[in-house]
């Protein structure tokens, strides 16, 4: 047997135990499904997402429709019956709003704000990061100095300043969250793009005279995705938490569009008098959402760790 054939035969024994031909995405998903904590996270987030999406169908009441509210039903304990006989599963708030419905709608707002702001920040940040890594030199130095300076300021401070200037509203809080978050994505992408672009497969692509666009989007970007995905998961959780915090402080969302943070804030004053549920239930929902996302992110970080690949 010639040497050429010999090496060809040995491939079948070279890599035992690994699933043959599985793409990196498939391998990641499989690993994720095998991790108990991640699975818990996926289930929690799945249920909450589902509930948020279907809020108008599930919720017994439209909490924004003032006509449906009865102030006489204010601050009823969980499980109480209303004047009209419906049961308030999680009680009502001070205006007689069904808390279960309010939480579903609040969840909708929180998730919407979190995901949209994270997505916009990701696109902006990742583009800037790629440009910075690719251009190098002075452009890179200036962009990264801006990122550094911004990151040396806490997110909440920057959000406070922007909201002070912009005022309240869903669009405004999204802008504020984007402004506070883009730099994280920029730094992550730039960092991994620089690492990747120094690796030999990029040299190989360049030596084959592939077009720049192809090198960036087919080679560098896909290999920057793992850290980007991890950062994005964690950042969505953080964005949701930050929005809730700002709304709690009364400078985030307006009262007309209560997110979870605002609901908690509303219940604050009644908490000391024993009507705990108005704050506690939205709080638990928020906590579950963030824990769920973080569990997924945490497990992704372990799975996508380059030292474990290959």
């Amino acid at each position, binding site marked *: 047997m010639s040497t050429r054939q010999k090496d060809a035969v040995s491939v079948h024994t070279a890599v035992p135990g690994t699933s043959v031909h599985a793409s990196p995405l498939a391998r990641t998903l499989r690993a994720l499904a095998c991790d108990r904590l991640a699975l818990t996270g996926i289930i929690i987030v799945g249920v909450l997402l589902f509930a948020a999406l279907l809020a108008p169908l599930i919720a017994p009441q439209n909490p924004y429709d003032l006509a449906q509210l009865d102030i006489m039903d204010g601050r009823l304990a969980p499980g109480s019956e209303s004047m009209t006989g419906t049961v308030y599963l999680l009680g009502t708030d001070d205006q007689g709003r069904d808390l279960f419905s309010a939480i579903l709608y609040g969840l909708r707002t929180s998730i919407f704000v979190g995901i949209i702001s994270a997505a916009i920040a990701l696109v902006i940040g990742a583009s800037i990061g790629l440009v910075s890594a690719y251009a190098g030199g002075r452009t890179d130095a200036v962009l*990264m100095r801006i990122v550094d300076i911004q990151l*040396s*300021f806490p997110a*909440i401070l920057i959000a*406070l300043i922007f909201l002070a*200037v912009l005022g309240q509203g869903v669009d405004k809080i999204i802008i504020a969250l984007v402004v506070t978050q883009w730099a994280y994505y920029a730094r992550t992408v730039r960092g991994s793009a620089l690492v990747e672009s120094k690796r030999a497969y990029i040299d190989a692509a360049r030596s084959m005279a592939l077009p720049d666009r192809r090198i960036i989007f087919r080679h560098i970007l896909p290999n920057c995705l793992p850290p980007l995905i991890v950062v994005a998961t964690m950042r969505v959780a953080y964005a949701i938490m930050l929005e809730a915090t700002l709304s*709690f402080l009364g400078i985030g969302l307006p009262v007309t569009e209560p997110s979870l943070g605002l609901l908690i804030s509303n219940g604050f004053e009644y908490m000391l008098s024993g009507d705990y549920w108005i704050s506690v239930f939205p*709080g638990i929902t928020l*906590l579950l959402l963030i824990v769920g996302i*973080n569990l997924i992110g945490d497990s992704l970080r372990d799975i996508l760790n380059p030292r474990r690949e290959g």
Partner: protein
Amino acid sequence: MSSYLLSRAFQAVVTLFVMSVLVFVGLYLVGNPVDVLLSPSATPAERLEIIQSFGLDRPVWEQYFLFVSRALTGDLGNSFVFNQPALDLILHRMPATMELAFTALVMALVIGIPLGIRAGLKPEGLISKSIMTFSILGFSLPTFWIGLIMIMVFSVQLGWLPASGRGDTVSILGVPLSFLTLDGLSHLILPAFNLALFKISLVIRLTRAGVMEIMQLDFVRFARAKGIPESRILRVHVLKNTLIPLITVIGLELGSLIAFAVVTETIFAWPGMGKLIIDAISVLDRPVILAYLMITVIMFSIINLLVDILYSLVDPRVRLEGGSR
């Protein structure tokens, strides 16, 4: 070194300038503070008088120029609401915030580092897994909500600790401090722990990741091959390498604690500058917002500078150099 300091100072000035212009112009565009200051029944004449007395009728660049030239003499303007110098207002409340932030930082380090080391040394063990689960929880708990729960449990239900205020303070060099009196300390514990919780989780994770990484490095293996006892390997070889990168984080996190004190101060009615800024934002008290901003920018620049210097002192591989990174 001097070129480094110069470039850092230059950077701080540029940041100050950019931030102040941004906020100044932004606030100018957003709205007229006069509407907030005046009662709706004020006559047009009263209105005009107020506008002129605050210089609000001049073009924005002129207002800004005036602001800067006064700021250089230490005058950041009078609060529209309190009618006191904004700088005094903030400086007066700064010690409370700083005390809260520092206490939280110390808590985060004292609790976080040992737990992180434990979790990093035996990552597969049950204790380590529990620590990590706790840290995910700590990471996910919204500060403001857990603050409410803490008040409900420890103050309302159990009645162990007070829920608001600073308690008795002792004045050291004219700075009132809570932690030196028993009453003050009991007031400090809840808010400080509330503020620290997120950072405890962060420190745990960073320490754990650091320890796990270092433990796999060749020099640790070599130290074992030298017959150095495990306790010394941990104390001398692993810890130093793990804690050095933490210094940078600590610097950043101190800033973040000062900023996040806004939330904790609101919940626990802690009389710091965070509460002040929230109130100022809701009534568009322009001088106070600007003064707060200027002071935090300067403060953060100083913190970052100190961190960099500290870092270069403990890590032989780092030399401070101007400009490049």
